[in-house]
């Protein structure tokens, strides 16, 4: 029985080893990691929504100027960075390493800009007395949820910046394949996507009247 199975390659139809949607194993791994990570953010966003709905007066601290305007600029930066990243991936696929690196560096600059503006936002709120456990606007959980959600997201952006820097640095020396660029792009788009949930749920729902 045992021997009947060990046939030379090619005699049986090939059903294994075919990657779904022609995805390589590294890329599939990244997709799965992002799927998993999306549950982390989902849990936090649901926790935030839950305590917010349960609260009588959730603070509405964000004025159109400067908070919402700044958050919009940050959103714009992240969206642009996804675009430059997509160009970078396309360039890497063409084998145009020089412009791939240039686009990745642009992406990194957008990411850094996002982090700087966001850090500034944090500093302003901290100056106003917003803490993890209390804030002058009332419901203490405003600070807890705001800092946790945006902090986790910012940590992802910061890791993304480092990740992209490593890719950009290794690309000219052929240490990375163009698929590696694409995989880092997946991560970057994911971070961008998460912000598209945080921006409306945290900022736009809390515009000061």
């Amino acid at each position, binding site marked *: *029985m*045992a021997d*009947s*199975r*060990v*046939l*030379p*390659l*090619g*005699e*049986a*139809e*090939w*059903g*294994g*080893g075919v*990657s*779904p949607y022609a995805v*390589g*194993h590294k890329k*599939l*791994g990244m997709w*799965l*990691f992002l*799927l*998993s*990570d999306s*549950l*982390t953010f*989902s*849990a*936090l966003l*649901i*926790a935030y929504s*839950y*305590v917010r709905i*349960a*609260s009588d007066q959730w603070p509405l601290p964000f004025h159109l100027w400067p908070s919402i305007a700044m958050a919009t600029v940050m959103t714009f930066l992240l969206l642009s960075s996804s675009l430059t990243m997509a160009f970078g991936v396309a360039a890497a696929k063409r084998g145009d390493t020089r412009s791939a690196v240039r686009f990745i560096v642009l992406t990194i600059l957008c990411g850094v800009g996002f982090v700087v503006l966001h850090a500034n936002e944090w500093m302003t709120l901290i100056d106003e007395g917003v803490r*993890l*456990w209390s804030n002058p606007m009332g*419901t*203490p*959980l405003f600070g*807890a*949820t705001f800092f*946790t959600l945006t902090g986790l997201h910012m940590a992802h952006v910061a890791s993304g910046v480092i990740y992209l820097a490593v890719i950009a640095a290794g690309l000219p020396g052929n240490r990375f394949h163009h698929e590696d660029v694409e995989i880092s792009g997946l991560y970057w788009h994911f971070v961008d996507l998460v912000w598209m949930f945080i921006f409306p749920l945290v900022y736009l729902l809390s515009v000061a009247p």
Partner: protein
Amino acid sequence: MSTVPVEPVVEAPRNYLNASYGVKSWLLTTDHKRIALLYLVTITILFFLGGAFAVMIRLELATPQGDLMTPDTYNKMFTLHGIIMVFFFLVPSIPATLGNFLVPMMIGARDMAFPRINLLSWYVLTIGAVISISAAVMGGVDTGWTFYTPYSTTYSNTYVTLMAVGIFIAGFSSILTGLNFIVTIHTMRAPGLTWFRMPLFIWSHYATAIIIMLGTPVIAITLLLVGAERTLKLGIFDPALGGDPILFQHLFWFYSHPAVYIMVLPAMGVVSELITCFSRKRIFGYSFVALSSVAIAILSFLVWGHHLFVSGQSVYAGMIFSLLSFMVAVPSAIKVFNWTATLYRGSISYDTPMLYAFGFIGLFTIGGLTGLFVATMAIDLHVHDTYFIIAHFHYIMVGGTVMAYMGGLHYWWPKMTGRMYPEGWAKFSALVLFVGFNLTFFPQFILGYLGMPRRYYAYPEEFQVLNVMSSAGATILGVGYLIPLVYLFWSMRYGERASSNPWGATSLEWQTPSPPPTENFTVTPVVTEEAYTYSHEAPEHV
């Protein structure tokens, strides 16, 4: 199989065990088979550690008075028992050891898709375990393994944060293992191994990996929030700051109910292999068994609210969760019926692994049916937080998972070590385990129904007889675990040499020498037929 293997024993000159020597060759290995053995050593230690805490619990409960330890110590004993057994033994148990060893071999691959991440996941688990054990040594934790708020966040004065960090880290080990399984199964199957030719063991590990990927991040962030609440006064679960302790229960059980299936699905995969091999039959309803694993994986995420029937959840939510919990019983029952139908008119042999498989089916059925009791809101009101619950989930986790784990360990032991275990001793200890298990936990169903609450170190006199039975059973159970520990070690050196396929099984891992070479297969196997092409004959006639 009752006779010695008939195939001539071919000495494998080079295999994964003797390919290299020395501590470094093990600690830096990327061979999935060696990593499986690293896991085996780690979780065996953790299992006996968790067992030691169980011994303390059963000793205290041998008498109605709280006389052996203080109530605080008792709280720590059951907490540490639960945490170590759930997060550090049951969750990794079958996937990390048998799964790690077998998933690549069963699909005809040389290794996992990410061998280095595989090794990393072992280190991560070990680091998590060390941190959690140090929390235990420094003073323990007394919240119960469920970390319910607000006790865990506000009132407990024990090492909750450190313990949460340990479990948080161990969670990454799960995620990395699950990720590795999915990618490996997708991309590394041998030619001809289509999805519906895969052994059911692979299907069940695939489904388990999905649950791990979707559930673990939620428990990780939840425990982190508990830690942050203790250290930074975060307040999401603190009513004084506007938070809600019930939210914790939702988030916790969103992972921890599916976690039951992280423990049981791999066990079901093992049982499917054992039942077919030792009844020499094709599995009855292959695609039903395979897809029921996926159905369980999906449904398991929709039932968490059955843990909150008495926690202040709306009664309508409770009704929906109750209904959904009944639905998750359907795919589980499909599996049990299909195994039974597979046995029908099979040529059954009663080797040790098969005894464990029978044990699994019987005990899992009891655990599953009592699960329907507790999924019924009215009955749950009566038995909630009593020993009925304890008995129910031990039938699933110990009667189900651990039985299948033991069965699988015996079944694949010849493949892993190249040696047979002593059949007489193995049968004896399987019997001891079965008797000990039932004597330990069946009385707890009655105790719970009579109203004995869980987590108390003293109890009314009238419960003593049943508690003494339970403690006596636990002693027998302990012996049942120690005997295999001794003879399995013994067999690694003195056991009879195993042939490449001592059970006459059909899956790919049996078509390479025992123990396998480092690269698993010298020629890439090509699969031309479905799984379980058993032809009703005992292996000696093959």
